[in-house]
């Protein structure tokens, strides 16, 4: 028990330490941004520090937090829906080749229609509401999760299935004890991708449908030609995504991928 806790703590420490590399990358981006700012001036591209200050100010205003919360909630609602539906349908299709063959062309069609078109349709059907946003997210992100789940089912190690069957596992326990872990390995990267798209689509839908949230604030910043505010809102939205991703999905992924760490030689961990 203590050993398991220590192991998790050490992995958390390693992860936090690797944050320095991420920070260095961000600083590089900020340097490029600063160069752009110095070349084109504050009106076209405000300095990173200016943007951060604006973001800080927005956060302390109070209203910004509500807007962020609204957008995050909408994104998460759409994401949760698409995760549940995508995984359920994907697993079902993975186990049933006929369903998979039927669903592949449908998926191509859905993926081919740009999210913008869905927003327009959803706006006509449901008006400017949270439902419009959620539906757009659902349609835009479900195919990714679906394909991840299908991939997980079809590429699973059937030898392990036979092994479990020999030791007395029925179909249900073969799924829960053996296949689920392998499916999760494929679904989680798809979920990370879907979460990112959820935020993007949420903001886009809000902006177009004028449904408030960060998208609404961006629309206002655009109409007032306030580039600093617009960039600050973008930074805040990215921050929200980062918090959700690293607070929600990455810990689960790290827990499931612990054995991969063991395969890496000492000192080359990520």
């Amino acid at each position, binding site marked *: 028990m203590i050993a398991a806790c220590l192991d998790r703590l050490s992995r958390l420490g390693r992860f936090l330490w690797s944050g320095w590399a991420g920070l260095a990358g961000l600083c590089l981006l900020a340097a490029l941004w600063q160069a752009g700012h110095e070349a084109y001036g504050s009106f076209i591209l405000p300095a990173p520090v200016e943007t951060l200050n604006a973001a800080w100010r927005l956060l302390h205003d109070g209203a910004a937090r509500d807007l962020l919360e609204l957008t995050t909630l909408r994104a998460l609602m759409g994401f949760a829906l698409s995760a549940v539906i995508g995984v359920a349908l994907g697993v079902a299709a993975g186990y049933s080749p006929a369903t998979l063959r039927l669903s592949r062309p449908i998926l191509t069609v859905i993926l081919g229609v740009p999210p913008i078109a869905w927003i327009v349709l959803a706006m006509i059907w449901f008006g400017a509401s949270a439902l419009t946003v959620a539906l757009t997210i659902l349609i835009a992100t479900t195919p990714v999760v679906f394909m991840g789940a299908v991939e997980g089912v079809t590429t699973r190690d059937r030898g*392990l299935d036979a*092994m479990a069957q*020999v*030791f007395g*596992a029925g179909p249900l326990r073969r799924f829960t*004890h053996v296949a689920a872990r392998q499916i999760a390995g494929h679904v989680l990267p798809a979920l990370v991708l879907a979460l990112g798209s959820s935020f993007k689509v949420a903001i886009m839908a809000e902006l177009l449908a004028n449904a408030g949230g960060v998208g609404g604030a961006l629309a206002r910043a655009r109409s007032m030609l306030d580039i600093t505010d617009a960039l600050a809102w973008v930074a805040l939205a990215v921050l929200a995504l980062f918090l959700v991703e690293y607070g929600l999905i990455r810990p689960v992924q790290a827990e499931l991928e*612990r*054995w991969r760490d*063991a*395969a890496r030689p000492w000192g080359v961990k990520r």
Partner: protein
Amino acid sequence: MSLLSLSRIGHAFFGRTVLEGITLEIGAGEVVALVGPSGSGKSTIAHIAAGLIEPREGRIARSYRRHAMVFQEPRLMPWATVEQNIGFPLRLSRHPRSTRRAAAGAAAEAAGLLPADLGKYPVELSGGMRQRTAIARALVTAPDFVYFDEPFTALDVALKRRMQDLVIASAARASFAALFITHDLMEAIRVSHRILVLDRLGRGIAGERRLAGDPGARDEAAIFAQRQAFLTGDPLFAHIHELDERLRP
């Protein structure tokens, strides 16, 4: 009394008959080796007997309590530690966690794994250690029948012999019956009480030879002499090394 009896088993993959009229019986505590050229359908017989494949025709009677299987590849779950892998059959039969740990530890020790290996993942183990883990997993539930499906084919010669000794010792200790599939005649002579030879096209069992003495009690010279006698003087074994699996119709 026989623990496993197959009668007139036949099977076909996609309309191509691979097995026909397979009849065999294995008694309690008896280790039976099934040899035959590669591609003759030996593994399919083991999988049919263990219930992994539904045969097209024939009858199977199993009167053992519990079976287990050691596959050609270790088939360990990569995300589980050695201890969890060994304890997996116990988990499936709903043993409480506490007794699972103790039983897995004991089985691992019997298979020659060190206590330090229990917390490792399969990727951290060598090929021999992985197969040891697979053997420990098969024996952890104390089965009275074990299927060995060419378990040591991928191992080098020295390791193979150590594994065979492990099987011989545990069969003697736990007195389980076993169907040992192999294409290595030497291995068959070392581990078994009785050798069945599969027809080279899977059309029934071509014949059987009972070996003198118990496995483990035979010395190396006698085993080697027996192998030579089988290969040079016994028409039953004439085809065992000659078939190319690509030439099968």
